[in-house]
């Protein structure tokens, strides 16, 4: 939309010629300047600039939908109204059906908590045929840390869906739908994303898994001076891919413990706080810790996995449709299973203090 050519917009001849003469060929060029700058550049009256911009804007502006239409459309065309069920009853209930399409879902947790297990299970679920509750499509698994094991995935499949996996050739077909990429550097990752764009837009891929994001950017853990985030282009590409192709995107991330001097406050809070309070309060440590705020804003659902005194917990920490809920789970041959279907509601600071084993 942004790259739509002005010449194709049927503006009045005079203004269209002036735009062309000054090298403003796409809508993006026209809308990246302020009205006054355009006026100076094109040397026309402000009113003419305004009416030309109004025309361009109307054409470039995406069509609107009412929220009702959106809901009905999704319910009619997409699997379960746009969700990939995880088969974990409590979690699916909290997420209104499962991992949502069109947005980024993040799995955060220290090493060894089960993030890769969860990703493997989801890949399997997405590849399954529709009558078994799957999306019947391809999966792209970007494995940055080389943790993907096909053997484990087939084991999960055979254990959860014995009737499918023991029939001839099915295991091969299911596994054949999962494409694993193993980029070893940020530039390779960038290239892979570009290539993925094409196959995503051709509607063959139903799930994208990136395991893990922060391994791509060495040194991302240090607090960075403000400037361009190293992954900012990737963040915007990933979110727009999710949106255009209406597929779920699952990303995993690590955490690190927060150090004392990093509890970030607003200036008005700093002014009123005592020294004592400053040391005691901890604010959303792990949201800041991994990849920073920019990434955290781009993520719609955040699931935090942790292990506390021998038990594993999956916490729904950021979700538009669910309060913070904690589910205890175990890892078994068929993947992940919840110990109880009802999550326990958490009080916020518990989510902040991730304790390591």
């Amino acid at each position, binding site marked *: 939309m942004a790259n739509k050519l002005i010449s194709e917009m049927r503006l009045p001849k005079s203004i269209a010629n002036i735009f062309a003469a000054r090298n403003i060929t796409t809508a993006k060029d026209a809308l990246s300047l302020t009205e006054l700058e355009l006026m100076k550049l094109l040397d026309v009256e402000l009113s003419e600039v305004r009416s030309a911009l109004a025309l361009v804007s109307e054409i470039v502006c*995406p069509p609107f939908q009412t929220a009702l239409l959106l809901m009905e459309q999704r319910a009619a065309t997409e699997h379960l109204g746009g969700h990939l069920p995880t088969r974990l009853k409590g979690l699916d209930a909290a997420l209104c059906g499962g991992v949502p399409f069109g947005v980024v879902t993040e799995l955060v947790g220290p090493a060894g908590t089960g993030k890769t297990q969860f990703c493997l299970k989801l890949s399997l679920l997405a590849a399954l045929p529709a009558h078994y509750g799957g999306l019947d499509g391809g999966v792209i698994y970007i494995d940055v840390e080389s943790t993907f094991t096909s053997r484990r995935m087939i084991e999960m499949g055979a254990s959860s869906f014995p009737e499918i996996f023991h029939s001839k050739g099915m295991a091969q077909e299911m596994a054949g739908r999962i494409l694993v990429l193993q980029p070893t550097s940020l530039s390779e990752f960038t290239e892979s994303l570009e290539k993925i764009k094409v196959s995503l837009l051709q509607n063959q891929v139903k799930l994208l898994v990136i395991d893990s994001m922060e391994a791509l950017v060495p040194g991302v853990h240090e607090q960075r001076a403000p400037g361009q985030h190293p992954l900012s282009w990737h963040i915007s590409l990933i979110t727009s891919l999710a949106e255009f192709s209406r597929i779920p995107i699952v990303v995993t991330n690590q955490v690190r413990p927060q150090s004392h001097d*990093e509890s970030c406050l607003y200036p008005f809070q700093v002014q009123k706080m005592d020294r004592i309070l400053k040391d005691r309060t901890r604010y959303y440590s792990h949201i800041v810790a991994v990849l920073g705020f920019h990434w955290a804003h781009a993520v*719609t659902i955040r699931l935090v996995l942790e292990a506390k005194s021998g038990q594993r917990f999956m916490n729904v920490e950021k979700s538009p449709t669910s309060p913070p809920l904690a589910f205890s789970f175990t890892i078994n041959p068929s993947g992940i299973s919840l110990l109880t279907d009802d999550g326990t509601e958490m009080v916020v600071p518990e989510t902040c203090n991730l304790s390591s084993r």
Partner: protein
Amino acid sequence: MEVSKLPISATQRGKLISAGYTSLSSICSASSSDISRGTQTAWDMLQEEQESLARITTSCADLDNILGGGIGCREVTEIGGVPGIGKTQLGIQLAVNVQIPVEFGGLGGKAIYIDTEGSFMVERALQIAEACVEDMLEYNRFLRNDCQVKTQPKDILENIFYFRICSYTEQSAVINYLDKFVSEHKDVKVVIIDSIAFHFRHGFVDLALRTRVLSGIALKLMNLAKKFSLAVVLLNQVTTKYTEGSFQLCLALGDSWSHCCTNRLILYWNSNERHAYIDKSPYLRSASASYSVTSRGIRNSTSRSKRIKMMI
């Protein structure tokens, strides 16, 4: 002397030039009322402000109190906070609450929701709409009113006009297009942009240009708010800034942007509760209030020790 060489702001220069005053002598010979076409006296403005006392409730009484009744029309309110604090929740709540019929104390208007991040979840809007209708029925029963609750949750969803924006070009385009759209849908009473920052944080290499484009956008939104007497709500993201020897939180898009909006509300965490703080307002007192996000939407927080803190 040419007007273009006068040491005045580009906007004023542009205004003078577009009004036909190109040299200093032409300005000198005009009377002040000629040049000041399009201005009003403070008294006229007061009359206007009295008329538009309509405010959109946030469904949380404490929050409404510090906001002077709710989000005001004819002004631009910026709401910022860390991820997960409830900005989108508040945005959806306002999109639903603007539709509360006049008999129930609302504006009976429609909403435009411009989504730049994809965080608008229809299921959540349905949940909030259903809770709103239930609350209205409850209110009716309680007061044994004669007015019927005719709205259904689906009707509420039908009155939210949803735009999904994927680049800053589309964002500028939709804001330019709003003027025409709202003229055709005169009952729109709130425009929510979620979030204003997302596309401007990457993709703009020239930061000075970004500042100029953003202030142009802010001006257009302000004009839109005044022309159609609607409320504009901008949701903003958070970033860190290195000041006074440590990293502090601040809203994204820079210092110049922070001047652009009429009111600024910051949502933050304070000892496991969500709070809202009036950071900037020409007429509201600096205060903070707590609120909570429930399955029914934004509501009062239930903690026992809450109180509104006045911070002057």
